[in-house]
């Protein structure tokens, strides 16, 4: 790295290193900075309070075509609207990296698919998920049948909706989850 400017204090670097290497850290910071160079200062030692609006985050090439990008930004942002600080940004890519453990990913996946934020994935959440997954090309009947099947298979406490435990129990049996819930950046 040719840039000798200090971006973080050593304590900040140490804190941020949970889940990343220092080089990856710096790479992510430059991505964040390049989204809005005039808003994000290069020197973060004074812990400035900078928040990038959702439109900038959603236009990143890694997220641009993801049908769930709005939910991802909402889940990881502090204000719940999708406007992210650097901390939120780093958290997001840390949870979606290949080193994040399964439980952490399952937790965040559950929150992404919980559209109405009520700590349960109910039928309406499932329908919205399905429509995003298939670009609204399934018929009403098919959507209804698939939702019924999903709830049948995963609902362990029989309350008609999926709680976090049901979701995690189902994720344990999915071999591909760790590799699909992964953004390469």
């Amino acid at each position: 790295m040719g840039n000798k400017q200090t971006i973080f204090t050593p304590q900040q670097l140490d804190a941020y290193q949970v889940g990343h290497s220092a080089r990856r850290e710096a790479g992510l910071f430059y991505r964040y900075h390049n989204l809005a160079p005039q808003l994000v200062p290069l020197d973060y030692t004074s812990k400035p309070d900078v928040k990038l609006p959702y439109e900038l985050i959603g236009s990143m090439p890694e997220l641009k075509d993801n049908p769930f990008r709005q939910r991802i930004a909402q889940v990881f942002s502090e204000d719940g609207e999708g406007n992210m600080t650097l901390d939120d940004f780093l958290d997001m890519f840390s949870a979606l990296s290949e080193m994040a453990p399964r439980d952490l990913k399952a937790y965040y996946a559950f929150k992404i698919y919980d559209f109405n934020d009520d700590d349960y994935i109910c039928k309406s959440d499932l329908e919205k998920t399905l429509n995003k997954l298939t670009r609204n090309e399934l018929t009403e009947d098919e959507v209804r049948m698939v939702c019924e099947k999903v709830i049948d298979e995963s609902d362990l406490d029989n309350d008609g909706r999926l709680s976090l435990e049901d979701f995690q129990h189902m994720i344990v049996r999915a071999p591909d989850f760790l590799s699909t819930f992964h953004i390469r950046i």
Partner: protein
Amino acid sequence: MSWARERQTLDAGQIHYGPHQSLRLRERPSNSAVQRPPQFNWNADQPEEGAKGRPRNLKELPLPMELKKAIRQVQQMKVPVMSNWQSWKISKSKTMKRFLEESREVLAYVAPWRRTLHKIGGHFGGGVQSYFLFLRFLVVLNFLSFLLIAGFVLAPSIVFQSSPGNSETQNSIDQIECMIYSPEPQSLSVFYQYFLDLLTGMGFMEYSYLFYGFYNNTEMMNLQLSYNIPMAYLLTTAFYFIFCLICIVLRMGAVIRDVVKTGGRAVGGYSTLVFTAWDYGLQGNRATNLKQNNIRYQLQMDLEEERIRKVAASLTMAQTVRLYSLRAFLNLVVFGLIGAAFYAIFKATQFSQSQTGGDFLDLIVQYLPSIVITAANFLVPFLCDKIALLERHSPSTTVILALLRAVFLRLVSLGVLLFTLWNGITCNGVTESAACSVCQYNHKQYPCWETRVGQEMYKLTVFDFITVIAVMILVEFPRRMLVDHCPCKLAQFVGRQEFVVPQNVLGLVYGQTVVWTGALFCPLLPAINTIKFIIIFYCRKITLFQNCRPADRTFRSNSSNFFFLLVLLLGWSLATVALIYAAVMIHPSMGCGPFRFLSMMWSVVPDSLQLLSNSSRDFLYFMGSQAFCIPLFVLLCVVLCYIAALASIYGKTVSLLQSQLKMEGRDKQFLVKRIKELNSASRGKKR
């Protein structure tokens, strides 16, 4: 609901956890059951540290950065009290873990084509990637086998070829006509003869290190070292087979572990599909559209299967009987087709073995068995697919049936070829008949029968390779150009090619089985196969990226990986049976080869054992005797029973834990209901 906007800054060591919390730790004041926010257990012991010296479970919790910083500071202040033994154990386990991680990284780095496989998996999914992983496994297996054979058979043969001190025993005079073997090419040869010889393995290729006939039964008996080439030849081949078996079984073990970990076939098929099918790493409009189509197709397929199952369950008795009799008839038709293919292979092989010659027309005759086998392997599955439409099975059953039929066809057609060769060599097993009585084999037609068998396997390998290249150039590229540039409806209907994984994998298994069968008779065949598979890897990669579209139907990779390895194991057993039969039951050629003066190939081992010292000889005899084998067998049975019992216990534990999970959910629901009732009761009492 208004959420607090501020987040308190943290001083060193102090944590404020008031109503101003970050998004992730908010307690939602909803009336449903509480979703526990991730807690951090301050009192837990920290016996294990991560490789970088940081406590591992800190990374696993979705806590805000400041909180993690604070926790780490507190943990560093804690000094665990441990005995010397425990601290030594912990430091040793840390070193071991670090070493294992680094060696795993090095292995992954050294493994060839790592980046290519990654790219393929990203673009086309796990099913196609599993084909390329299988191909890479076979390349590595073949290369290691070649090193084995080169080290123990080829190099000593080359070295001892020209050195004095070989001993060659003489045969008895009256079998002189069996020793006639003259594979030297004619002096006047046409210019394209070399090319033809390269393709058929005859002429200048026949008497070379490529085939069995060239090796001598030299036994080096120097003062410093002694090397018995026939023994090395046989034992290297045997060890090569055992090495392949071990590799396949190890790989199967790894695959089974994955399958068991996830509870076998995806029981939660729909939920897994909905929640884990979307690949978050996909970029670009085209890739996401394809993935969405993919998911939609899979869901529709699953629903269709459900519908078919319901329809099948609701048939009347008369309709069921009619369906089953139709299916039985169609199965007979399929068996008839396969039997016809076998007969065609039998006739073709007989005809081709009886002809010899050197010009182009005879080239076709030489390759006739390979052509017939390849044509049968293409036509018969195609017809079976059309027939399967009438059978009206569910889609997954149809796929499995087609695969089973294709596997049966491929492996047994190779078996028919070997059977026909055996017929010719041993006069249908009747060694007293006219042609075979002198030398115990048909010496007029097969002066060196091992080389001939090796040549057949060589021709099969070469033809398989040529077919792959020819299909790629003559079928796949033109099809893609037609689809891309011709606006006619037929082209759009046919569409771009799809990479069909099962058929391609069966082709690989077939090629590898041919190599195994021919390894005893053509020692360089694994080397040729390594090169062939490497070229096929690159060809398939090019065709995948240029000509294919991502499959509509994804291939379930985890359970099918196991199936492919099982089929490979089946091919291996076929080759082993052929090897054992050839080594033990058929008299080796007297005119060529390292076993020319023995009555069977295996007898070189007992003969050499006589030369050992008394004690080692007695020890080996003891190992082969009943006094050792029967207790060993009994011990192995006991170990097998123990492992089976262990496996059943684990299975029961897993199902017990699953039912316990369900029970806990119900308990929670019950308790919440009771709390509500009590609350409303007490509220009612207050009024």
